[in-house]
């Protein structure tokens, strides 16, 4: 099998993983075999089915309250998907708009915005998110807002660079010469040509955001514990590392699988556009 073919197959497989993950998250309530918050003290800390004492009824085992791990993983995928998608959308919109404006118009606006980006980049972002969420009170909306707004410099820098490259192209020069309104040039000529890089950064950003959300939940400052999340499951599993290491293993494996797949997909997309 040729290298190119192997890479394509792998990209398709990763796309499959991401697609399956999205479907599971969308249809979670119908897919989870048990109520994710339903406790069953008679079957506490059951190991996965393939280990000794495991039961097929709970294929991935149960936690300290007898809750089914598989059901909690399925339910937790919703928060991961929701946070991943909406933070990237928020950051991409805000950062993309700033990148477009600064790259196209330049001047004072550009200098001020890029300085602000520097300031924010020098902030340890997880620290600031932690502190902000602690001050504002943990909730899904706050987590999305903080993680989304914190990521604007990544998008702004990429789009600004892409705009600067596009702006010097002949078709933009021609449009200027023909007397097109700047807003029209921005909307009709520049924006469509920087969407490629925007999509790539966004894809590569998804895994970062998912891991950040899980980190916040793990530290107890993310989405409130009543909602099952992968980070929250890890937090609870941490106390049982000695007796029931699978509690912490499964949610981490889930995060890793989705994160590695989206990263690979973003990379393949990048190669494809770069070689086109």
């Amino acid at each position, binding site marked *: 099998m040729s*290298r190119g073919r192997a890479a394509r197959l792998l990209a398709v497989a990763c796309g499959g993983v991401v697609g399956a993950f999205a479907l599971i998250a969308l249809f979670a309530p119908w897919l989870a075999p048990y109520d994710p918050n339903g406790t069953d003290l008679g079957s506490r800390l059951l190991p996965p089915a393939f280990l000794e004492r495991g039961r097929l009824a709970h294929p991935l085992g149960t936690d300290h309250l007898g809750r089914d791990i598989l059901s909690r993983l399925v339910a937790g995928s919703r928060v991961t998907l929701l946070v991943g998608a909406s933070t990237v959308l928020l950051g991409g919109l805000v950062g993309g708009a700033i990148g477009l404006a600064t790259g196209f118009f330049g001047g004072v606006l550009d200098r001020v915005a890029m*300085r*602000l980006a*520097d*300031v924010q*980049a*020098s*902030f*340890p*972002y*997880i*620290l*600031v998110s*932690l*502190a*902000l969420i*602690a*001050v*504002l009170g943990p909730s899904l909306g706050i987590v999305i807002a903080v993680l989304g707004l914190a990521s604007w410099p990544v998008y702004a820098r990429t789009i600004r660079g892409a705009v600067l490259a596009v702006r010097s192209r002949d078709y933009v020069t021609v449009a200027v010469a023909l007397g097109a309104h700047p807003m029209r040039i921005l909307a009709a000529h520049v924006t469509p040509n920087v969407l490629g890089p925007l999509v790539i950064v966004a894809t590569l950003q998804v*895994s970062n955001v998912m*891991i950040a959300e*899980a*980190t916040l939940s*793990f*530290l*107890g*400052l993310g989405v409130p514990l009543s909602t099952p999340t992968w*980070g929250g499951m*890890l937090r609870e*599993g*941490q106390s049982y*590392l*000695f007796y029931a*290491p699978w509690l*912490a*293993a499964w*949610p*981490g494996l889930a*995060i*890793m699988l989705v*994160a*590695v797949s989206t*990263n*690979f997909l973003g*990379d393949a997309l990048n190669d494809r556009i770069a070689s086109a």
Partner: protein
Amino acid sequence: MAVVVARRLLDALPVLVGSSLLVFLLVHLSGDPALLMLSPDTPPEQVAEFRRAHGLDQPLHVQYLRFVGGAIRGDLGESIRFRRPALDLVLEALPATLELAAASLVLVVGVGVPLGVLSAARTGTAMDAAVRGLVFVGQGTPPFWLGLMLIVVFAVKLRLLPSSGRGDFSQLVLPAVTLAAYFVAAVARLTRGGLVAALRSDYVRTARAKGLAPWRVLFGHALRNVLIPVVTMIGLQTGTLLGGAVVTETIFAWPGMGRLIVDSIYRRDYPVVQAAILVTVVLFVAVNLVVDLSYRLLDPRVRHE
């Protein structure tokens, strides 16, 4: 040299002012800093007393100027929990964090760069594919999960290494590996990418044509040109590294700044949180100044500018 340092310090000024403003505003975001820092059942007289004692009854801009004035003199307020200067607490925890960061940096450079070189020198081989796979896994693994799994394997199952605390070398291993993993992957990726491009360049073709040994071409010519982006990235990632220390220190009970921050957030000891974030930003600025100056060592072209 002195001019360069002065110019860089001037460049850092907006960063320092901006971050001091953000850190100051942090506690005001909730509306009332006094209620944020005191327990909910504090009697109103004590809340009022707290406001007076900490100058919270002053207009916002006066409070900010006081905050900055204090910060310049090294006074970042007092820890509510310990009744001691917040900055002292942070500086006492700093060496532990620096030790952890230094150990991770050794791993990042000592493992990440060689992996990248190995992969770039043998593009298209199984070795290259293995390194690239490792990079993807390394960048997609949540650090705190890696930490927990390392504890399960090396502390619980194999009983080879301790799972927490700071003191002897064996206690440093697991936290350093946990903190370094992501950056090892990032540096390997960057080194590989830069080297692959450099190996295709004209100066490498010339060096080969001169009949230089392949290892001299690789290390003396190609790798030297890749070091600048690698060093730049390490500098820019200092903030992320210090942020990653928060999680790592929490998992391994490492008595550094990260754990101090998380503890202080849980206990609503915001002066300590503010001091720790500011110290982190100053560290970041300092590291990037050193990175900037190191270009002059790594690249003669910068020296002659």
